[in-house]
């Protein structure tokens, strides 16, 4: 239980860290997995977006997290050399009080980019050896980057890989368990050795593999899309003692938030979810161009006003 002094005195980094450990926080931690430059431009009425503008926008929204996406060299048909991958202003963000999450791409994302959607999805069937060898290459790339990132003192890592779509998994879970999960386990172990919590981000309905995700060692899950049968209440009940859940806000919620009744209903839902430990509020999809970020602002302002 937080002491009276601790109430409202936690910094963003500590607030998020406590949520990941599924402990009580003074307020609901908030974070976005990605923020499109166009959203920042529109919100701040500026022409260019750099570190200062991103920080201003993050503060404006009252976010506790900055999530840094990898900047890869020009794609040449294969995986990049890990030394050529960067994260914008990685060191500068460490001077802020924000929790620094850094994102790495997973094997499906890379596989689809290198082989094409259809070809990669059937590679395990057509050539198990090539499939396995490619997974090993992605693992090496990620482990090399993880070592650099841990040295840089990042607070958390996310492996982003869309393993599923609305209906269910893209690949048979037997294939995942045989080839993909052992590799993820090695990557997560490397991260854990550096003392850094690890989240997995996946769109879609991944209900079938949540026990595997816990077994692999992930600390949290981002993207809880009710339209993909990912029910946050059900997930909290079943796995709340083992995973931190990040997301749950739908693009549609932000449009509706402009209507007072809908805003109140949304807030009630958020507070019910947040009454359980191990929750970070945010959108499921990040703030991309076209999303109702002003609706999100309304939600966040109201939460702040209510001292939550």
């Amino acid at each position, binding site marked *: 239980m937080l002491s009276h002094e601790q109430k409202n005195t936690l910094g963003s980094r500590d607030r998020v860290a406590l949520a990941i450990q599924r402990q009580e926080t003074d307020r609901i931690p908030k974070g976005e997995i990605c923020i499109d430059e166009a959203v920042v431009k529109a919100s701040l009425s500026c022409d260019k977006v750099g570190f200062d503008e991103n920080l201003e926008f993050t503060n404006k929204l009252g976010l506790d997290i900055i999530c840094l996406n990898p900047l890869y060299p020009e794609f040449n048909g294969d995986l990049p050399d890990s030394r050529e991958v960067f994260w914008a202003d990685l060191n500068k963000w460490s001077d802020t009080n924000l929790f620094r999450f850094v994102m790495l791409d997973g094997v499906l994302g890379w596989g689809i980019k290198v082989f094409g*959607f259809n070809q990669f999805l059937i590679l395990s069937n057509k050539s198990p050896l090539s499939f396995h060898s490619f997974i090993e290459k992605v693992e090496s790339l990620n482990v090399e980057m993880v070592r650099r990132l841990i040295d840089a003192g990042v607070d958390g890592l996310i492996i982003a890989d869309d393993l599923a779509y609305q209906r269910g998994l893209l690949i*048979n*879970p037997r294939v995942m368990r045989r080839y993909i999960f052992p590799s993820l386990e090695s990557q997560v172990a490397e991260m854990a050795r550096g003392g850094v919590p690890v989240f997995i981000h996946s769109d879609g309905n991944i209900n079938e593999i949540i026990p595997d995700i816990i077994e692999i060692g992930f600390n949290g899950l981002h993207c809880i899309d009710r339209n993909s049968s990912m029910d946050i209440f059900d997930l909290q009940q079943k796995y709340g003692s083992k995973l931190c859940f990040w997301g749950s806000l739908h693009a549609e919620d932000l449009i509706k938030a402009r209507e007072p009744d809908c805003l109140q209903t949304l807030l009630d839902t958020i507070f019910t979810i947040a009454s359980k430990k191990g929750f970070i509020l945010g959108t499921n999809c990040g703030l991309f161009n076209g999303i109702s970020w002003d609706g999100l602002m309304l939600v966040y302002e109201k939460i702040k006003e209510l001292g939550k």
Partner: protein
Amino acid sequence: MINGLIKAIANLEEETTLRLVKEKIASGETPLEIVEQCRKGVEIVGKRYNEEIYYLSDLIMSEEIFRRVMEILEPHFPKNTNQNKYKLIMGTIEGDIHDLGKNIVINLLRSVGFEVRDLGVDVQPEDFVKCVKETGASIIGISVLLTFSINSVKKVMRLLEEAGLRDNMTVVIGGYPVNERIREYTGADYYETDAVKAVELFKRIIMEKE
């Protein structure tokens, strides 16, 4: 009782399927008879997918096997026997690069016999119209995930109208944000947010057109 070829496709056994197809050609079965057996196999795959026994990758694998069967059979077809496929154009509208939903629907459609021209992502409204003129297709599927791209769908409808192509055209929009209000706003004929239901919808459209 299902024969070996149907079973091989249904079980996604690529090499067995191709071997059986070659044996059947050698033994004098016609390409159409062989295609029909393969179609039955693919149908079982679709059924297993609907029953959540198979996954999307399995569906794509069946399509790949079918594609390779067709490669083997192609020289043996009498000319112009394979022209009855239903032509359909699909693409993700301009400004949007999400293609997963579109790819799923395309794979499902191809697995049930549609000939789909995939225009890819970020497709300009003009390119949908251009493709209609090139292919003579009378059905368009437009995938849209970002709400701000919805006006571009409306533009496709306007361009079809201007080109005099609207009357014979059926336009289906799909993707997470679409609903009846958006369908009405864009002027599209139908909308669907579920991939499996979308395939049923396209089948119904074909029946209506026939």
